[in-house]
């Protein structure tokens, strides 16, 4: 606990510094929209080293059952592809974004999305991706991609998306 407290205070200092930056909103624009990193179609889908290939050919997302964070066989197959790609294209890091459908309270869905993102991270690490290349975040029910209020949309919203970002030290 002592160690934890010291670390937290250190991080606090950094955060305070960040807050004094008058251009913080501009700098961070879009970061809160669940879409940091490369936009859709970065590079050509025919180029296997491109983010577009990762997103579209391999698949950048996996879906979950209601209230669940376990990975289905389909999800595991997608993540095997993601792991292989990340092992080959070592210049990239990724943020794994966990999401929930709108059935649930805001707080619970944030925690549930975190479980989903974490399940993906652990799987990718188990397949050999270095843990320090992966970060997780949950958006709970804040950023649905489908906006209807029935299961056809909910099924697509219960997701974890692996969003590529520029590599370590770049």
């Amino acid at each position, binding site marked *: *606990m002592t160690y*934890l*407290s010291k*670390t*937290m*205070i250190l*991080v*606090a200092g950094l*955060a*305070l510094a*960040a*807050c004094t930056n008058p251009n*913080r*909103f*501009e700098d*961070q*624009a879009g*970061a*809160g*929209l669940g879409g*940091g990193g490369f936009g859709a179609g970065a590079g050509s889908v025919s180029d296997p080293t491109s983010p577009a290939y990762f997103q579209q050919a391999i698949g950048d997302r996996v879906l979950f059952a209601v209230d669940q*964070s376990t990975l289905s066989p389909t999800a595991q197959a997608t993540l095997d592809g993601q792991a292989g790609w990340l092992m080959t294209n070592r210049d990239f890091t990724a*943020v794994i974004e966990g999401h929930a459908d*709108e*059935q*649930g*309270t*805001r*707080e*619970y869905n*944030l*925690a*549930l999305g*975190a*479980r989903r*993102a*974490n*399940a993906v*991270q*652990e799987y990718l690490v188990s397949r050999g991706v270095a843990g320090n290349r992966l*970060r*997780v*975040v*949950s*958006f709970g029910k*804040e*950023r*649905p*991609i*489908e*906006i*209807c*209020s029935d299961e056809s949309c909910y099924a697509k919203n219960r997701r974890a998306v692996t969003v590529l970002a520029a590599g370590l030290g770049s």
Partner: protein
Amino acid sequence: MMRSLLTLLAALTLWAAPATSQQGGPLRLEITEGVIEPMPVAVPDFVADTPAAQEFARNIARVIAADLTGTGLFREIPAEAHISRITSFESPVQFADWRAINAQAMVTGAVNVDGAGRVVVRFRIYDVFAGQELGQGQQLVGQRDGWRRIAHKVADQVYARITGEGGYFDSRVVFVSESGPKNQRAKRLAIMDYDGANIQFLTDAASIVLAPRFSPTGDRVLYTSYETGFPRIYVLDVASVGRRALPTLDGTMAFAPRFSPDGRTVLYSLTQGGNTDLYSMDIGSGASTRLTTAPSIETAPSYSPDGRQIVFESDRSGTPQLYIMSASGGEARRISFGEGRYGTPVWSPRGDLVAFTKQSKGRFHIGVMRVDGSEERLLTASFLDEGPTWAPNGRVIMFTRETQGAQGEARLYSVDITGRNLRQVATPGGASDPSWGPLQN
């Protein structure tokens, strides 16, 4: 008169005597809008002592009447029905004229704008049928732009003198103002009077912000923001709108903050390695203490008014349920046992009740239960109701209601703890996550 006052008191204390039997169970009564007879009240325009006070004299009376009728406990007798006119604050009231239109309570007042440009309001509250004043007349003084607060303070006095309960009109609400489509919703922190007036934005729409929480004195607001790309907790000073991030551990998420009753400690959820637990942080030093260590989700914590216990939500049983534990952590006892999922518990200011969100059979409800889990009562039902917050007097709950479908929109509603008087709160656009602040000084 005495009888009608007693009727009103009985209505306010209905909670203590559940009227559930004729409805066949608590699930029904609360959703039904029960009928009580609201007390007829006359609020004639206040007398303007000077021409400059004319507009205030009329508007203050209108806000007082709106506050009172908004409770569902009073019905205003419209000015067209008045027989007498109040043209002088000091002249004796013609009680017979007010009895004739069945006004049981009446508020009269006079407004002056003094040499310093301040608004000076004198008022009296009458028991019409008894032909006498209820308590002493009072004088309130405020700045011109504070006239609504003066009106709310008068209405709080009327409410308190007639019901014997504290009022809640001179209070503010901090919430999330929403705009844009559901898949790209822009969210900004905003603050307003309890009735939706005097709205002020506290953040821009660049980052998602969630669930602001007032400090006990209303001077600060805790909230969660995605400013860094990851959810973190910030504390904002209401007067200066300055803010700072609370310390956190890199690679974690922090959310669901809430102040302790003394304003010195923050309870919150921290997620690390996919697991969400409860922590408390001393705001002064930034030092955190971990309160739970289960592999389940623990979130949405709220202190008891004495600061000694915490009610929170956990899915340790397999579904989200409500639990109470000591403020220092340790063993927790489950208090929710009904069918469905429970979340976002909030301890009432009086300490006797917990308000919560319940999800059951595809519907959402706002409900209350005693702190031992007994006497659960659902107050609302809709596609999506969530996030209750208590009025300062513990009689009314405000919450978020979101409508269904692609065009779905969130709005704020209030309901009293008997399940009556469901009302939408006036906001200029979408709104969610209200936090009701204390009565102002």
